[in-house]
């Protein structure tokens, strides 16, 4: 009887150790690079840009996921998710800038076209 009690006690101890071993305490991760990339994307207007808004949204979602992983103690996974968030946000920045550059280029081309048209029509009316 005493042997059985000892065996049960040993079993409880092992179970407790196993449970404690499986659960993890929250970890701290450095989110600075990803959050500043997201901020930069927002500043260049990625949220209102049809191409860039998707990547900005993904970056935000990934930042949230990284928080969950960090809360569960999965540091490596959280950091990997933060890198994903950063690359998505950086892509959103570049796409937004691309749209702006396109608009500037179109405007410059239009300006030349109008100047040439005006010159042709003024020559015609001379």
């Amino acid at each position, binding site marked *: 009887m005493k042997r059985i009690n000892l065996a049960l006690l040993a079993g409880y101890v092992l179970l407790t150790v196993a449970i404690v071993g499986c659960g993890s305490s929250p970890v701290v991760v450095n989110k600075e690079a990803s959050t500043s990339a997201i901020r930069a994307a927002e500043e260049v207007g990625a949220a209102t840009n049809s191409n860039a808004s998707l*990547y900005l949204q993904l970056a935000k979602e990934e930042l949230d996921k990284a928080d969950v992983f960090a809360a569960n103690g999965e540091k*490596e*996974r959280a950091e*990997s*998710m933060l*890198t*994903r968030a950063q*690359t*998505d946000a*950086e*892509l959103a920045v*570049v*796409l937004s*800038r*691309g749209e702006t*550059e*396109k608009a*500037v*280029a179109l405007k*410059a*081309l239009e*300006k*030349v076209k109008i*100047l*040439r048209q005006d*010159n042709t029509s003024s020559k015609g009316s*001379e």
Partner: protein
Amino acid sequence: MKHFKYFIVVALVAILAGCATSLPPSELVNARLAFQQANKGQAAVLVPAELHKAKLALDQAENSFLQEPESYRTKDLSYIADRLAKTSEAEAVIIAQDAITTKANKDYETTQAEILKDKTDLLADEQKARMEAETKAAKALADLAKLAAVKEEERGLVITLSGSVLFASNKSQLLPAAQDRLNSVADALLENNGRKITIEGHTDSQGSTAYNQTLSQKRADVVRSYLISRGYPENLIIAKGIGEDRPIANNDNAEGRANNRRVEIVIDRSNN
């Protein structure tokens, strides 16, 4: 024996499953495609460093796939490689658009300079042509002054041709010699083309006033017709018979009457 057979089958399946190559995750497939696309596009030329970063990331993902095909690490590395490839492509677009803007701005400046040069040239040509025309007209008037009396008056430039040079007494047909003189007058007038002119016929006081009025009108009409035949615009010439009303000399002597028998061509000051 039966158990042994099962064991053999299970072992074979396990071996085959172990040897079978795992399919790459969709993230890795996307990353490969994204890199291929960027590598074929402008990124390879315009942003090689960015593209190289994407290549390194893709290599890392491929290595991870060989070691841990199903791991989140492989998926995340592939995802990152995909985004880096897309970013390099987007960077290339920025550089290409920037080049378009720079070229367009340069074209604008060049075109503007060309237009300015064209306008300046045109202005210079016009000025030159105007000066040439003015010189020619001035020369024509100077030549005219040798053939007839030319006088600047309030009503305009007045060219006075003696009646006796143009017409026989009491006639309204031009004398043959008059045509030479009128030709010179016509040439000078044509150099000042575009101005309104008035041909005035004047007589002395011999004969009736009505007769003189008719004669002076006829003579003015004849000179007008002649100038039109020489190319002066019809709508710019008016013929007026003044008769004996505006003598410039005394009608009491022959010399004065000769001076009064005349045709005056008045050139209007303003251009039409």
